């Protein structure tokens, strides 16, 4: 049978419609499309896709199960390696991971692995799955700091092995970046809640409103009887550009903008938390967070949204699907542009004018790509005399974060890199402190959900090995 050269399309909400609502953009495969897509797998000998996956999901095996219509079996195969299939099927950058390695991709479009994974996970979540078997308690206690992807993965794996796991979350809702960062239209919060409920059913205790490093210290967790600790506290404080005008009203970090909308539901008219709606918005940066902020601003009623990025489309790090969706929705990409100043309103005649101090625009300089830097990325260089002004009402900075200082500053002997990331042993996730492990953005700086999840799973394995050896 000839190979179908193109992947099966996944239906999406009409761009004109979805630009004004917070419902999920991508609608998922039908059963027929999922089977058709899974059937494109040629089961090549080396299965390079598996090595392209940060947690090595047995991709050809689960595709075989889907092809046969055995969706629950497919889910169980994915679950052997991944803790959050419904999440990863939606937010993984598959085009640079599993799908980049797909042999089909040499001649045709690579297999849409992420879409099939999502179908399998949604099918499982939609069916009345039997309550998970209660693991036999092994009598050992482990504390997990943070309930984002790395913490949830670590807690889940340990709970299945019989550990009594307590997860400490600083915010009022568990989920970490999955609830405060990634918007509803890309990852519905009900999916995250389902994953959290699943962990609770396994016996995991989740304590919200506890800031480790403040409310409780790492050393106190050991005094309380925990035998090992996993730190998955995530990314930290947002970076700013340190250009003039960054404290004008209407300048947000992407973290703040998204937290207001996602965690605090500011997109709802009845929300108690305010957010700027409407007007013209410039988002500075080119990652997934920048795309999320831009598309959120659009859905909040912005009349025009720009992405301002200093390199070209080729270097833009966001997930390809998000870039395409953003473009379809009408977001304008101002590539090879770098902000040099944010402009604000001043009424010289009336210091009490309520508009004083609000953003009116952003001054940018055009860039060109020069010689490659040490990482091989071509360095953007400002073109002299190319400055121009763009009239906007809000500026959202999405240029990364620096690790949160709270745990580092209160945990003696916890080594960190000069930029603040926690130092760990690569093979185990062990920090410089005995029985303290770490993973996710707190170690790597801003990265992906799947790599954080992988780090959580690795730490769970290492913790199990450590506690077995000791007992």
């Amino acid at each position: 049978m000839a190979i179908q050269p193109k992947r099966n399309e996944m239906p999406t909400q009409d761009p004109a419609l979805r630009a004004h609502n917070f419902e999920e953009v991508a609608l998922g495969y039908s059963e027929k499309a999922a089977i058709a897509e899974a059937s494109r797998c040629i089961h090549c000998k080396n299965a390079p896709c598996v090595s392209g996956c940060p947690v090595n999901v047995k991709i050809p095996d689960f595709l075989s199960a889907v092809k046969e219509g055995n969706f629950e079996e497919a889910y169980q195969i994915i679950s052997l390696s991944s803790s959050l299939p419904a999440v990863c099927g939606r937010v993984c950058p598959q085009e640079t991971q599993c799908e980049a390695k797909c042999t089909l991709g040499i001649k045709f479009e690579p297999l849409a692995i992420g879409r099939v994974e999502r179908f399998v996970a949604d099918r499982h979540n939609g069916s009345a799955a039997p309550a998970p078997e209660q693991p036999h308690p092994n009598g050992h206690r482990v504390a997990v700091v943070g309930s984002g992807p790395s913490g949830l993965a670590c807690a889940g794996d340990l709970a299945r092995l019989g550990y009594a796991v307590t997860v400490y979350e600083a915010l009022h809702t568990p989920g970490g970046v999955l609830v405060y960062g990634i918007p509803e239209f890309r990852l519905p919060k009900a999916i995250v809640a389902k994953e959290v409920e699943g962990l609770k059913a396994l016996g995991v205790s989740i304590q919200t409103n506890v800031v480790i490093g403040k409310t409780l210290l790492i050393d106190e967790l050991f005094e309380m009887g925990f035998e090992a600790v996993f730190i998955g506290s995530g990314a930290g404080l947002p970076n700013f550009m340190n250009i003039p005008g960054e404290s004008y009203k209407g300048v947000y970090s992407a973290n703040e903008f998204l937290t207001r909308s996602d965690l605090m539901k500011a997109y709802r008219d009845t929300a108690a938390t305010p957010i700027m709606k409407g007007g013209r918005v410039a988002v500075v940066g080119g990652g997934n967070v920048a795309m999320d902020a831009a598309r959120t601003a659009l859905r909040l009623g912005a009349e025009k949204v720009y992405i301002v990025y200093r390199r070209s489309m080729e270097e833009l790090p966001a997930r390809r699907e998000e870039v395409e969706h953003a473009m379809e929705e009408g977001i304008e990409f101002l590539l090879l542009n770098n902000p040099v100043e944010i402009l604000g309103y001043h009424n010289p005649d009336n210091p009490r004018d309520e508009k004083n101090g609000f953003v009116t625009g952003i001054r940018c300089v055009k860039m060109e790509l020069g010689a490659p830097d040490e990482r091989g990325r071509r360095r953007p260089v400002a073109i002299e005399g190319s400055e121009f002004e763009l009239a906007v009402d809000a500026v959202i900075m999405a240029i990364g974060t620096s690790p949160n200082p709270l745990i580092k500053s209160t945990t003696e002997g916890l080594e960190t890199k000069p930029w603040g990331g926690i130092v760990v042993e690569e093979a185990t996730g062990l920090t410089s402190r005995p029985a303290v492990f770490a993973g996710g953005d707190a170690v790597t700086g801003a990265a992906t959900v799947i790599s954080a999840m992988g780090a959580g799973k690795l730490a769970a394995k290492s913790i199990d090995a450590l506690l077995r050896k000791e007992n």
Partner: protein
Amino acid sequence: MYQIIRKRCLNPTVTQMDIAAPLVARKAKAGQFIILRVDEEGERIPLTVAGYSREEGTVRIIFQTVGATTALLAAKEEGEYIADFVGPLGVPTETEGLSRVCVVGGGVGCAIALPVAEELHRLGASVSAIIGFRSKDLLILEEEFRAASDSLTVVTDDGSYGEKGNVTQPLQVLLEKGEKFDRIIAIGPLVMMKFVVATAKPYGIPVTVSMNPIMIDGTGMCGGCRLTLWQDGKRVTKFACVDGPDFDGYQVDFEDAMSRGAMYRSFERHAYEATCNLLKKGEE
């Protein structure tokens, strides 16, 4: 859920509550803050710790009804619960090694200044306290301040109680008399703290101010609480939630902080009115 153990009205707009939060009470220190949500749909607001009882496991908050959330909170009664209460956050006020301190409090800021004065007093420092209010009916915590200080001056804007004027006038008098404070700790409205700094400057006395910017998570994630500081002529961005809330008053860009604090003024006004109407309806 966190229970309101005690509630007391300090004046018509200022309420004091002791909240059961044993983990927070165990660690809280003067100058730190907490974040709370009144209910599941509520916003997160920061309030500075006004006291605590480690034995009882309670944390004291004192707040003025200024908007929708504080109106909802003030409507809660003893025995009722609030949804979330997290802390203690921020860096405690530096109180060690000081022997002669002037504590300046303005309005509801006095609620935060009091535990600082008490701690200094307990450590054996000589404390001169100056507290200021708009008028006599807004006066709070006078007796508590008297007990925690070696000398207390009360001022009101309209002269209805104590000396007439604002807090900088008695401060100026003390400084002119040659009082050699190791430090001045000022807690109150931004404009008050700004003028305390200006008053102290000619005398070269260090001033610590307690900043209370807009905050969301309060744990070092969102960056909403950022402040502009000037260090050696260079502009530096700091975050009140993890670097503060106390800062060197000479470094803080107050104009900037005042402007940013007014970001949601019109939203807040509308939300407040809507909440007041709702609360009134509930009473009818």
